[in-house]
């Protein structure tokens, strides 16, 4: 793998950038791998990467139906934070956030992690109590967050209207080291690093069946032929149910649309990520200058990657009310993604009824921020059979009534 650096760019510039090699190879599948990961999104690629890096398992294929990073990894609002309430969530997301801190150096690929700070506004007494609760929990979980008052909110976000007529801003939960990253680059960086370890990333290859013998997975059938494996990881947000069915089990999931939009780019005016959960909207400014805006999910089962416009309306009016100066900005583009929702809105990272087969799904609206932590935990689970990061997120928790509910402290899962 050719090392990326300013020097390398300068050297290549002199020869008109003719010397750059492929970021990842484009191999044909081998007959057999130790591990097959289905799904070359951020989570799948990160799982493969940490299998290789932490456990030396490098005979790995990552199989992708479309193009790598082409699912929700490439269509989210790029927020990274770990100010979750419940212990298992806080552990997982903080692991991810801390890995993001060094990810560019680790992968030698600039994922542009920008720890500009994430702020969750409290606009009711109930939210104040919820976020103070989160701040207390975070302190014990090793997650650095703090409760800040409205003056500090205004100082950090000069464009905010803290005394709107409907919901004045009463304070906020502030995570200084939360922020954003370049979503595509996360997938690309992991893919390049996986490929450099000798792993095969096989794009345009659809899994058509999962093969098993005596209750254990032995391989998959694909549009590029049959491939054998010892272990199989299914990491295909939006299509998990279909893959699970091939593997002979069912998942407690529903697929629904989540929408987002960006404004036209303007000069920097908002240096942090702001989430306003009472009014259902959140906003940050991208490195291109676009205001990146997200809101709630649609209500019905949907596989179209198109949402209903009234959700965009609800989000936009909330943000215009919160940041009145954006009223004359224009929406440049809106889009939707399909997210898997579980019964408690928390993900599933788990063994499955099929031996050797593991599942990572149900990230709902908040998967991007978890990518490195999820990959780390899944790799540990798949390599050793146990991971403290994933142990609460098992498939059987719904049967036991053991939920991981983040909505309790006025929090949301974005």
């Amino acid at each position, binding site marked *: 793998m050719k090392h990326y650096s300013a020097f390398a760019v300068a050297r290549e510039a002199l020869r008109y950038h003719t010397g750059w090699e492929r970021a990842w190879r484009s191999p044909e599948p081998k007959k057999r791998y130790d591990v097959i990961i289905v799904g070359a999104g951020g989570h799948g690629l990160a799982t493969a990467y940490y299998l290789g890096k932490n456990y030396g398992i490098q005979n790995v294929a990552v199989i992708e139906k479309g193009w790598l990073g082409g699912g929700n990894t490439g269509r989210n609002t790029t927020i990274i934070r770990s100010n979750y309430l419940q212990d298992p969530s806080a552990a997982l997301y903080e692991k991810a956030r801390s890995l993001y801190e060094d990810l560019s150096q680790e992968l030698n690929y600039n994922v542009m992690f920008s720890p500009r700070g994430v702020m969750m506004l409290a606009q009711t007494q109930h939210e104040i109590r919820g976020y103070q609760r989160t701040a207390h929990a975070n302190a014990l979980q090793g997650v650095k967050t703090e409760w800040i008052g409205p003056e500090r909110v205004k100082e950090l976000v000069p464009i905010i209207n803290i005394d709107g007529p409907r919901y004045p801003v009463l304070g906020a939960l502030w995570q200084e080291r939360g922020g954003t990253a370049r979503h595509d680059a996360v997938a690309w960086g992991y893919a390049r690093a996986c490929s450099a370890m000798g792993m095969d990333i096989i794009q345009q290859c659809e899994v058509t069946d999962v093969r098993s013998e005596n209750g254990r997975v032995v391989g998959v059938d694909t549009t590029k032929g049959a491939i054998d494996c010892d272990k199989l990881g299914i990491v295909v947000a939006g299509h998990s149910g279909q893959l699970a069915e091939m593997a002979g089990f069912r998942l407690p999931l529903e697929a629904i649309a989540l929408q987002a939009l960006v404004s036209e780019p303007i000069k920097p005016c908002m240096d942090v990520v702001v989430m306003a959960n009472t009014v259902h909207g959140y906003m940050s400014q991208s490195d291109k200058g676009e205001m990146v805006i997200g809101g709630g999910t649609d209500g019905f089962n*949907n596989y179209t990657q198109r949402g209903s416009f009234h959700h965009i309306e609800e989000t936009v009016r909330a943000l215009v009310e919160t940041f009145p100066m954006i009223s004359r900005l224009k929406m440049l583009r809106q889009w939707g993604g399909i997210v898997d929702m579980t019964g408690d809105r928390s993900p599933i990272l788990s063994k499955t009824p099929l031996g050797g087969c593991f599942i990572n799904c149900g990230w709902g609206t908040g998967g991007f921020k978890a990518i490195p932590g999820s990959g780390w935990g899944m790799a540990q689970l798949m390599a050793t059979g146990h991971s403290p990061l994933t142990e609460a997120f098992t498939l059987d928790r719904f049967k036991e009534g053991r939920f991981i509910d983040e909505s309790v402290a006025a929090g949301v899962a974005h």
Partner: protein
Amino acid sequence: MLVLTCPYCGVEAEETELSAGGEAHLKRYGPGSSDDEFHDYLFMRENPKGVHFERWRHSNGCGKWFHAARCTQTLEVFGTYSAQTTEPPKEVKNAISAKRPGWSWRGHS
């Protein structure tokens, strides 16, 4: 932005008058049921790519719950019908069969 015809008040209601209520025709399991039955009743949804039977409430309207048969991939609506039934009526099933030959759901087709 869907439009569904409320079978109770006859209005072609757009989505903002409606509330989605998830999968229809669930059988309730109460005390005495097994853990698996109860788990499946609460959490295990069909989540199909294709024909879906689902519940809606005309909440900004007549307030009634009704059922819809809808394709989750094209959003085509095959029909709406009363919520006071444990299975889709024949005309709805026929409408689906006409559009999705070979379709079946829990033994219905």
